[in-house]
């Protein structure tokens, strides 16, 4: 029998099927609301709008940085991608296939691994580190002996001598060493994507530099793709190819590293950049770029969520929600100042059709 419709290449490994131009992960309209305890009896139920309609792609082989203040939904986005929590709405496509649909969850989990911020809390204190690293391969059906051999290879790869470290327990290691173990464990299933959720934030600066170098080496050697979540903009600038700025559960701006850092089109990104401490004592910051704390995500402001803290805000900003629109080839921003004809005084005039 001759098939006329071209079959998807099911003989190719997961993650290679879509070809190099297909984004490795596409998030489409992700929404996650957490109900608030103790509300809702005879009253409308309150929810924390942790992630409220987020779309983005992670291209093959790139590092996408995610920045924003605490509570902006960075970590929730990461957990949604990992399927540690399920989205209320929206889809995740892995290499063009819907996760949980065309692509079974167990196949997906092998391809995507995560490293958490707290290196101690994310390791089982009662397993030696070689057992921790070998755990996932054994769950996925690899014989115990081979899994331990692979764990030793990986320990060696992340700079921990297996003969000295393999039998130790997490409490016998320093923070930097534990984070190396977590990275080795994430690599044990040979994933395509690693989500690094503030993975270096708890480390001292001199150790942080060592771990960042390790991450760059591993990315090159294993052909990995990273989602790099951090609140440290300097680290993001060093590590990432593209950067996504989040504010209160929405994407404020996304674009190439140079576009975001050199030519940002969103006032929130500009304020974040200006909040970084200056290294020059003769050029100290005189005015805080933003006043106050981020608003409560239970009851976010109407219209543009940033308008309560934005120095360019006009009345239109509290009425209209700006769409995430492309402002140049390598950059999209969600700001009415970039939308032609948005009735914001700084918006470009609408082109005659």
């Amino acid at each position, binding site marked *: 029998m001759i098939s006329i419709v071209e079959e998807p290449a099911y003989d190719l490994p997961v993650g290679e099927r879509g070809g190099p131009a297909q984004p490795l992960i596409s998030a489409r309209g992700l929404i996650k609301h957490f109900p608030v305890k103790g509300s809702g009896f005879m009253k409308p139920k309150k929810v924390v709008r942790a992630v409220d309609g987020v779309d983005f792609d992670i291209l093959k082989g790139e590092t996408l940085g995610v920045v924003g203040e605490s509570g902006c939904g960075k970590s929730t986005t990461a957990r949604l991608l990992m399927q540690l929590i399920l989205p209320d709405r929206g889809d995740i496509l892995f290499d063009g296939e819907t996760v949980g649909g065309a692509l079974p969850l167990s196949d997906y989990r092998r391809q995507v691994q995560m490293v958490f911020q707290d290196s101690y809390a994310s390791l089982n204190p009662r397993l030696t580190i070689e057992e921790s690293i070998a755990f996932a391969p054994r769950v996925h059906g690899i014989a115990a002996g081979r899994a331990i051999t692979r764990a030793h290879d990986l320990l060696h790869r992340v700079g921990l001598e297996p003969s000295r470290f393999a039998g130790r327990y997490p409490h016998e290691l320093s923070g930097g060493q534990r984070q190396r173990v977590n990275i080795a464990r994430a690599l044990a299933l040979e994933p395509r994507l690693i989500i690094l959720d503030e993975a270096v934030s708890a480390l001292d600066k001199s150790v942080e530099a060592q771990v*960042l170098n390790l991450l760059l080496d591993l990315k090159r050697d294993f052909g990995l793709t990273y989602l790099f979540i951090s*609140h440290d903009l300097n680290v993001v600038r060093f590590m990432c190819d593209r950067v996504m700025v989040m504010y209160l559960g929405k994407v404020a701006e996304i674009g190439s590293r140079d576009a975001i850092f050199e030519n940002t089109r969103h006032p929130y990104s500009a304020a974040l950049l200006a909040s970084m401490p200056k*290294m020059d004592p003769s050029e100290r910051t005189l005015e805080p770029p933003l006043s106050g704390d981020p608003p409560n995500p239970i009851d976010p402001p109407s219209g543009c969520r940033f308008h309560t803290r934005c120095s360019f805000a006009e009345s239109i900003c509290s009425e209209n929600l700006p769409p995430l629109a492309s402002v140049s080839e390598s950059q999209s921003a969600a700001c009415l100042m970039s939308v032609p004809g948005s009735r914001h005084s700084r918006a470009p005039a609408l082109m005659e059709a």
Partner: protein
Amino acid sequence: MQTAAMIDIRNLSVTFNRGRKPVKAVNGVSLSVQPGEVVALLGESGSGKSVTMRSLLRLHPKGTTIEGSMTVAGRDVTGLTAKDLGAFRGAVASMVFQEPRLALDPVYTLGRQIEETIMRHEGISRAQAAARALALFQKVKIPSPERRLQNYPHEMSGGMLQRSMIAMALACNPKVLLADEPTTALDATVQIQILLLIRDLQKEYGLSVIFVTHDIGVAAEVADRIAVMYAGRIVEEGRVADIIREPRHPYTKGLLGARVELAHGRDRLITIPGAPPDLAAMPPGCAFAPRCAQVSDLCRTEVPALMPVGGTGSVACVQCA
């Protein structure tokens, strides 16, 4: 310059006698802070920066050995009795902690906690103390201060709580403010607000401040001088601009060189190899010798003293003296 230092620490050593081996967390630290001066203690975790600062309020657990002398505003801190210590803490020197959520009492409103501090030290009525608390909340720029004084700590955001902590620390007009990584737990946008607030209040009240941090950028924003600590000792000390532009000690150079901002166009960061030493088993010579690129035989046998260099700074390294 040495006439009337507000804080004068001489040869301070702190040893914790818990666990199997005694741990010498601070090892011969000398530091003086002038009236109205801000000194940043910069170092990685375990370098002894917080321990040094906590010694100034004698906040260590029982059984801790403190050697050396500490003078704050003319008072000998090592010799204070428990009663004098109570009058000293808060009224002469007070502290802002890293985690306001842990430092504040969750079952009292913020107003109560600030009033309590003022009443304890000055013996005035609650109404007078409440008026002072309100003025303090306005001073630290908390919006709608009357309402906020009635709030419990869990009802406030991290930035607001840190402002309240600062208000409480300043409640009894201390001369010395000790800040233990007050902005580490905050977002960058809030961090810069708190740093500017501390800087403004410091100027207004002429406070002497010791600011403990691990972030060179934060030190550059607030400090007049920086003292860099490594494994319980001060390895380099000097004016903030000198330390940042011309670090002398190999460890300071390494810390500044490992900054990601400098890696533009390069695909790797310059790192300091290895890890800080175990404080219970310190190497005999310079503590940095095992990680140092310019190490010599002398470094492995002798602990270098902190020697003056270039007029305003000093450095503890045989290669630089």
